[in-house]
């Protein structure tokens, strides 16, 4: 597979380390009353869709940036790739 790195262009997937669902960006608030339940969901429960999936890839053999790659798990078509740090800031602004 080739991943369209937002800064470096098309890069071979072998340069990356895969982590999984991009929902890992949404770490729960440890001070909230339901933190125990929220963390259980965060750590163990994830969707495993057959289709479009937002997921985290680490450019470990490259510039060490974390990317959010939107990939169709049925066809391996890659619809988008963005820097996780920008996405994380964005979602915070939106929230």
């Amino acid at each position, binding site marked *: 597979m080739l991943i369209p790195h937002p800064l470096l262009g098309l890069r071979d997937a072998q340069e990356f*380390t895969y*982590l999984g669902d991009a929902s890992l960006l949404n770490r*729960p608030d440890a001070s909230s009353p339901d933190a125990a339940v929220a963390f259980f969901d965060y750590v163990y429960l994830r969707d495993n869709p057959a289709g479009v999936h937002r997921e985290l890839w680490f450019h470990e053999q490259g510039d060490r*940036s974390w990317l959010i790659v939107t990939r169709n798990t049925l066809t391996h078509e890659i619809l988008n790739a963005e820097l996780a740090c920008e996405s994380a800031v964005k979602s915070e602004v939106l929230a």
Partner: protein
Amino acid sequence: MTRLTGGVIDHETALRFTFNGKTYSGRKGDTLASALLANGVQLVGRSFKYHRPRGVLSAGSEEPNALVTLRGGAREEPNTRATVTELFDGLRARSQNHVGPLHRDFMAVNDLLSPLFASGFYYKTFMWPRAFWEKLYEPLIRHAAGLGRLSGEADPDAYDKGFLHCDLLVIGGGAAGLSAALGAGRAGVKVILADEDFQFGGRLLAETHQLDGMPATSWVTAVMAELAGLENVRVMPRTTVFGTYDHGIYGAVERVSDHLSAADGAVRQTLWRITAKRSILAAGATERHIPFPNNDRPGIMLAGAMRAYANRWAASPTRHPSDPVIIFTNNDDGHRTATDLLAKGVPVSAVVDPRSDAPTFGDYELITGVVDDTKGRLGLTSVRVTQNGQSRWMPCGALGVSGGWNPNVHLSSHHRSKPVWDDALLAFVPGKDLPNGMIVAGAAVGQGTTVKALRSGVEAAVSSLAALGIAAEPIDLPDADDTAAAQTAFWHVSRKGRAWVDFQNDVTVKDIVLAHQENMRPVEHLKRWTTLGMATDQGKTSNISALAVMAELTGKSLPETGTTIFRPPYTGVTLSVLGGGDTGKHFRPTRYTPTHQWSASQGATFVEVGAWLRAQYFVQPGETHWRQSVDREVLAVRSGVGLCDVTTLGKIDVQGPDAAEFLNRIYCNMMGTLAVGRVRYGVMLREDGHAYDDGTCARLSENHFVVTTTTANAAIVYRNMEFARQCLWPELNVSLISTTDAWAQIAVAGPNSRTLLSRVVDGFDLSNEVFPFMACAELTVCGGLRARLFRISFSGELAYEIAVPARYGNALLERLAQVGADLGATPYGTEALGVMRIEKGHAAGSELNGQTTAQMLSLGRMVSEKKDSIGAVMSRREGLAQDKRRLVGFSPIDKSEAIVAGSHLFTQGETRNTTTDQGWITSAAYSPHVGSSIAIGFLEEGDARMGEVVIAANPLEGREVRVEVVSPHFVDPEGGRLRD
């Protein structure tokens, strides 16, 4: 000899080769198969299950029968298809799968017992008695099964791998592939043209069709010459594109020197990873046969293969020139074999065609009927022809069979695109949802006439370039034949007797009938029940015929019956080339520590630690056992001073105004409050609450920390910290740099360490008052070399770790040993390091194994309640918080006994099973300080059981040791030494 005239072989260059020890002569341009046929050799092997004598069936990579073992010794190569083996001078080949000589195989008794070996025989028979399976049945079956055998020796040849990029990859160099490559090549785009054959031209070489009134080979020669002159075109013969992968990536194997007598050290094969913007699949088609009783005798061959052998290789399919040939075909194409053979002077006595409207193309007898039996155990002697219910035996030396052609859709289906049935072609053609960027052309998409193949190749090139935004002119094509071969569906001859469908796995029509009776009707079940198509040829000549038989039995149409899923590789790929030379020492890189050179000069034995090679211990003169060296090194540290390279521990530079806050969230303990110039021990948790790494964190300045990790987790900790920085808290102003390789770090440990260091530092005050335990500083040593000094101790002694730029590591260690000689400075390795950390009760990889918690490590109080950090919330959850196992020490009651790591702990007198299991020994060593074996491990409520005697059981070796529960701190439990 049955060598004919003409063809595209070099009649002047003779090549000698041996088959089963007998020497033959072939010609340059021959394959092993064509050379054997030209020598009148029809019998080339034995079948897999019934050990039936077999001959060459095809003229290409689809060959199921002619599998041979090439070469010998370590270079022995089993299961090689003689039909694609390019002949070279000195080639050695032998047949496979027989006991005794090929013509008198003792295992052929299986053929007489064939009723016993029907499909499902193993499943049903070897079920009982159960105990017999492992001891009797399986070894017997394993011995009988399999075709060629491996040499068992390491492959001595060199292999390589490489990467290629192109605008257009053309797979297949026949009519369609050549016109596509020429069209795209002239337009100037970067083209790769690959073909598995050693000669380009595909079926153009095998047929007698003319192009522009000239032999097709003239056109092929002209095109190849033009392509060779185009810098933007890379022509790759002997290259099989075996798989279609994601995003335009294709796998290919180039047989670089397989065809050379003496490779002279050249790479034998190269694995190519080709990234192509667009691709054209022009892989041609594979002829199918027609199953009829005893259709597997040597001399029975695909009709198209017969044409190829006669036209390209000037080889007749018979053993003697006077033996007549008979053709059995359901289509016009088969008749061409008769006319081509006649033109070459090979006698053809009849063409048998079941079609009532079959035409005649030449001077041969046309029989409207079928072939329904054959004779000639080691080579065909006669066939039975049945016409209007009347049968007669006709003598012949070879039989050509044609049941139509199957487009080679394989590579278009590797992404699960399902082929679709074409009623006019009577074949599956590529369907929708082809791999991105792929166009299929020529016979592979059913455009099988020469004109259609040429034209579809050019059209595919124009379309491919248009998709790249390049307008290309269609090139002029030569005039050629455009007669489609008429055919009628005729799948098999239904008569008593075994009619082979899959030659390589010995699957007959009867087996398919049996599968139908047993309700193994879906194609996936049919395949697994009968093993149809599961041999090395992957059923290239059999799958569609089998589907047709099953369709007939179920009364369904062929498309309803379905087709199997195609997966890479298209043809077998050797493991050697997949390794691509990355074997043995080159399997992965070796990381040397900065002090490797000096350590080697001091007699170090090295050990692999992850990718690193670290000094394990230093053997001195007179030492004959590693324990002597290790004990000496440990005692030298505890009484004088020792030196150890600890560079491999991960080092991460953390800088920025928010570095302190960031580290508070990374470590479970408070780190932000660390004073400048001080070091603190820290534990990191995974988000699920388990401990996963520990190390030290030094604060060099307000906004600059240095984190150390364990050797094993250096990469993972860095990855997780980057995850936290970029994904969890991008608002924090902090930067991370992995500096593991930048700094050489040397532990200087032992009561004399301060004195030794004072001899290399540049006027730095090392006194306990100024530089106490857990202090750190940036300084210079040896007259101006920048360094970092940390007063930390893994051994429990007064100790320091000193870091200098990596390139000075070797010199620094040498200097320290030199100036500390009078102080007893002794290099020590990982073994002594391990002994001393067990003596001190420090956790390492065996304790931090990913299943243990900070509490179990007796570090539970470190998990701060005042702040959130990774894993803090989950570490307090039910189940983890209640875990009562604690890290404690163990001392054997009988001091002469050794405790073994991995032993499980049980209360004395208790039965031993998983429910009474009390914990396990994580690390054990002989302690020269204590004078006996010692261990640490996790024990249920271990901290409350000091003094109790428990059993450390090692049932694997049938041993057990009575041990006393003690403090894990065997040396200086108060920690006075490291604070002095």
